[in-house]
């Protein structure tokens, strides 16, 4: 995003809403972040995804011994998570850094835009990009399922709650990427976010380590890590979805609540760190 592109919507916001609070400014930044992602051809990954699913739908029947529906769900949702994680990590870590490198951040902060508003706007913009990505991929998986089943397939309804959980996981990952990028270089931020993604899926092991360690210090260390790092294994519902098992509404609601809490914490921490940086 460059300064002139951002300045225009923010000016419009000021004119149309007067002193309407942070919300219009956040929305303006989010909209620009989304446009920037589209301009950067982030959504081109959908083409690769569609090709992958089409090939799978046509050829997998011969290889899977009658398990094509299961493979389509596994392949589709796993690709959704993998592609989404790559976008969240690699686009997420560049959100702030690009503005600093191009020096457009000085123009942005010369307007009445707060650091928190800027970060939240950027975050929501990338979340919108990911939402478009997930929804289009979800439609692709649903169509592939209908194709291999030769008609309506009840699995189509089961996979959407699993996709919601994948999207929540990607939202958490984006927040983590934003946190690291608020104080570190893109390469290091990407590496750290990737570690969080991996460790987040090992959370059950962290918990068992915490309980099985002999020394109290080690127990505390692993217990702290368990609660400090996001428990991403809660969002892994791909395999049950392939068996036609949907998460309960209560489970989804609780994981959403956990996600919102965790994202709020991470974005607040990112704002604290980012506020201390000098852009004057």
């Amino acid at each position, binding site marked *: 995003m460059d300064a002139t592109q951002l300045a225009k919507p923010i000016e419009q916001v000021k004119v149309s809403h007067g002193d309407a609070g942070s919300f219009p400014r956040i929305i303006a930044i989010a909209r620009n972040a989304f446009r920037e992602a589209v301009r950067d051809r982030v959504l081109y990954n959908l083409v690769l995804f569609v090709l992958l699913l089409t090939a799978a739908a046509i050829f997998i029947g011969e*290889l*899977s*011994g*009658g398990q094509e529906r299961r*493979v389509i769900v*596994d392949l589709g949702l*796993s690709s959704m998570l993998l592609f989404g994680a790559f976008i969240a990590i690699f686009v997420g870590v560049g959100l702030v850094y690009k503005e600093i490198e191009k020096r457009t951040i000085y123009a942005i902060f010369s307007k009445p835009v707060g650091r928190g508003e800027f970060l939240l706007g950027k975050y929501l913009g990338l979340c919108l990009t990911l939402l478009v990505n997930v929804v289009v991929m979800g439609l692709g998986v649903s169509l592939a399922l209908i194709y291999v089943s030769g008609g309506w397939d009840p699995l189509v309804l089961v996979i959407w709650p699993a996709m919601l959980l994948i999207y929540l996981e990607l939202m958490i990952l984006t927040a983590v990427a934003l946190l690291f990028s608020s104080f570190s270089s893109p390469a290091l931020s990407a590496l750290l976010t990737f570690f969080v993604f991996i460790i987040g899926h090992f959370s059950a092991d962290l918990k068992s380590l915490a309980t099985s360690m002999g020394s109290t210090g080690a127990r505390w260390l692993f217990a702290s890590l368990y609660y400090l790092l996001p428990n*991403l294994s809660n969002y892994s519902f791909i*395999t049950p979805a392939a068996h036609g098992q949907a998460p309960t509404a209560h489970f989804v609601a609780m994981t959403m609540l956990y996600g919102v809490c965790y994202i709020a914490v991470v974005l607040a921490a990112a704002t604290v760190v980012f506020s201390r940086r000098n852009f004057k």
Partner: protein
Amino acid sequence: MTQLSMKSDSTKTAGLVIIIVAGLLAAASLSRWLDSHRAPLNADAADESLYLNGKTARRMSLAFNGLAADWYWMRSLQYVGKKIINLPENVELDNLGQLNLKTLAPLLDTATSLDPQFLDPYEYAAVVLPSVDVEQAIRITKKGIDANPNAWKLYQHLGYIYWQQKDFQAAADAYSRGAQIPGAPRFFAAMKARMLAEDGSRDTAREIYKQMFEQSADDSVKDMARRRLMQLDSMDQRDVLRKLLTAYQTRTGHCPATWKEIEPVLRSLRVPLVSEAAPMDPSGAPYVLKGCDVDLNPKSEVPGK
């Protein structure tokens, strides 16, 4: 930009395109040459052990354990398929002991560790593994029962393995435990009684393969069950034909030289006949007359053993 420099640019681009195309063609040709001239691996090296066991693979697969299970499942099918394709004659899926399928058990074990609710690998283990490594077949099926205590199909698989091993008491126990699961089909209770009363009778075998054919989602397993059912029908038919041949020999003092000689009897019994009055096996191939005995046609789809 002058016309001369534009022409020079187009020449460069054309040159680069030629290099790309020629390079790709050369690389593909060399790759084919290398494939055809590579020394074949010996059987032990080709069946290299898996790097990861099931538990480690599960840990490393993060949220992608379902996809990894699919991968190992398809590898299992390809592994068996590649070995079968190299055989000169047809073999049955439940009789692959000669193929040295030593990597099959670890592959199926890993697939089921990655996704313990994935039932098809258990079925494959129950059908294919007993002729390769019966201990592993029983272990993997029992592992499936532990992970899916309500999946009655797994008890059916376990009963099938024990029945094949002629351990009819264990087979009856497996069917008995399966019968207690809510939703289990009625034939479980009948199979328990049949295992204890009839052991290895053809009717028991017919019932087992009939259920397998009706319930399996795997085409290769279905096909195996279909051929086994044809084999059982053919065994019954051959028993009848042998009786007819013995009766003919008793009556005339010699065995028939051709099927034509006993055609009226065959027609009166409504045995389906093909050309030259030869009776037809369940796959549609004519039986071969061997003196006072009858044998399967080499072209028949019915398994010989």
